[in-house]
């Protein structure tokens, strides 16, 4: 398995680079949308899958990120100021957005949100914006990868597997719980900021509890605690409903049923398939070894 990892990653990267050629503008938009969700779900996967916490408030952080950037860019400030601000500013109640109309346009939302520029290069075009989001996704993915291999990452998994034991080993539970939420929220904030610039129109609806629940669903479907789980999970949550459009009025029914069946088939998420094969192979090997040793023992008894 190990020797395939690097070529596989390179292949995936090449596919992501080449993907825009195969799509029209809506496909490209969807692809970017998917990447944005990968970032948000990566953050939530850290909170839920690695640190073992429960979070149904992720969409709020996503929304805070989106609104921070939208409001700041409306005020004429740079996206590059808004992005870190979005990542930092995750403590405001969602409802304020809905009701403080002077600031956020209320339920009418904010529109005409511009896209950022990078070193004088405009990212206004869909293609340029796709590559921009792809770069940020890879960057944040790399950061998370590093984080998980650091002592912090180990502390998170210890916290998930047995909080009381982790505490008795000197891990400050409260600090690491907060940290896992804060980092997860920062990822959601960045994703929200990218989302605002992608969609160029935001209203409070995508940030309500229903989308928090959807994000939770994406984490669990992909495989909580698997590094690449968010990639598959957000594909199911974002792309699958679009594929199912042929079912017309029934497409969300098909989607919901698919989620139920998928869960029954793979309770540990899509990425548990390789583990399952591995476990089956090991079981086969173990039983073969047992049979061999039983035979040997029987021969020994005869002799």
């Amino acid at each position, binding site marked *: 398995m190990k020797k395939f990892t690097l070529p596989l990653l390179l292949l995936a990267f090449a596919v992501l680079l080449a993907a825009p050629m195969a799509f029209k503008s809506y496909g490209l938009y969807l692809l970017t949308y998917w990447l944005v969700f990968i970032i948000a779900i990566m953050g939530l996967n850290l909170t839920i899958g690695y640190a073992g916490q429960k979070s149904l408030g992720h969409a709020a952080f996503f929304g805070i990120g989106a609104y921070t950037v939208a409001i700041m860019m409306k005020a004429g400030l740079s996206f590059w100021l808004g992005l870190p601000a979005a990542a930092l500013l995750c403590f405001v109640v969602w409802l304020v957005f809905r009701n403080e109309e002077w600031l956020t346009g209320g339920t009418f939302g904010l529109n005409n949100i511009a896209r950022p520029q990078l070193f004088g290069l405009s990212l206004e075009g869909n293609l340029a914006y796709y590559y921009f989001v792809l770069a940020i996704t890879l960057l944040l993915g790399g950061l998370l990868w590093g984080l998980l291999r650091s002592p912090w990452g180990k502390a998170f998994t210890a916290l998930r597997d047995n909080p009381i034991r982790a505490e008795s080993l000197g891990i400050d539970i409260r600090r690491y719980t907060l940290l896992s939420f804060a980092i997860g929220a920062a990822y959601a904030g960045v994703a929200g900021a990218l989302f605002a610039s992608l969609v160029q129109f935001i209203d409070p609806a995508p940030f309500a509890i229903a989308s928090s629940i959807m994000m939770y669903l994406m984490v669990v479907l992909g495989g909580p605690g698997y590094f690449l789980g968010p990639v598959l999970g957000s594909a199911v949550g974002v792309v699958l409903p679009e594929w199912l459009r042929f079912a017309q009025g*029934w497409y969300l*029914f098909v989607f*919901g049923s698919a989620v139920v069946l998928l869960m*029954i088939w793979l309770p540990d998420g899509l990425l548990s398939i390789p583990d399952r094969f591995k476990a089956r192979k090991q079981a086969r090997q173990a039983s073969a070894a047992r049979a061999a040793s039983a035979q040997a023992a029987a021969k020994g008894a005869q002799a």
Partner: protein
Amino acid sequence: MTDFLQLLFSGMSTGAIYALAALGFTLLWQASGTINFAQGEFVMLPAFMMLAFLSAGLPLWACFVLTCFVAVFVLGWAFKRGVVDPLFRHGMMPIVVATIGLAIAMRNAVRAGYSAEAHPFPSLFPDAIYQIAGVTLTLQDLGTFVLALALVLLTQAFLGRTVTGRAMQAVAQNTESASVLGINVPRMIFYTFAINAVLAVAAAALVAPSYLAKFDMGEGLGNKAFFAAIIGGFNNSRGALLGGLIVGVCENLAAAYISPAYKDAVALVIFMIVILFKPQGLLGKKVERKV
């Protein structure tokens, strides 16, 4: 003062309906560790079943009884066998996500297969208005409150006073010892699911006349019931009643005295305050886990 009483009373009738749905939440949680995110849809579906029976020309009470039977089969037995049993041993997360999927499927099946419109629903009570000390009470509100309260108390009496009910509680508290004592554990768990289904049908019959039957009516109701259950204490069925009433009343008062736009946030705010000071809920007991 009369305004306040007025709001209090209408809030209590909404709260009693939340309590019914919240009671189902706590029952399922206790008996099988299931957090049912489709609870709101479990109320929405019976409402439409009853409408279908009604349009076939049956009287309301017959529709109610028939729907109870169908609901016990579909939302009780089939839900337990199809979704909960296979996922039970994998912990909470897969069940939560499967019920989220189920909620989406049910909501959209009704929208695509039946109708996306809001349907009027006949009231169980005749139109009558009473004036008591300047407070206007409709028989609708009063009857809803009394009936919902009676159902919650009846369920509790069943759990606490009858042999079957006590066996169900034993299963909820300690499955292993219960089976050692000769209690048929799977059957008791099925009873819990059946009771949950019947409570959902009752909630549907009470909520639909004032809020209309619509495919997405379960979304808000399910959320409110979920918060009410946590506010009251997830492992205590009396807590569901308290939580439901608190949410219903506070919501109504906040809509009148603060702002209707913030009405939906009330449940969340109470929820946060309660969780901050008493994480196990108002009436809940703390559960210790092994190292």
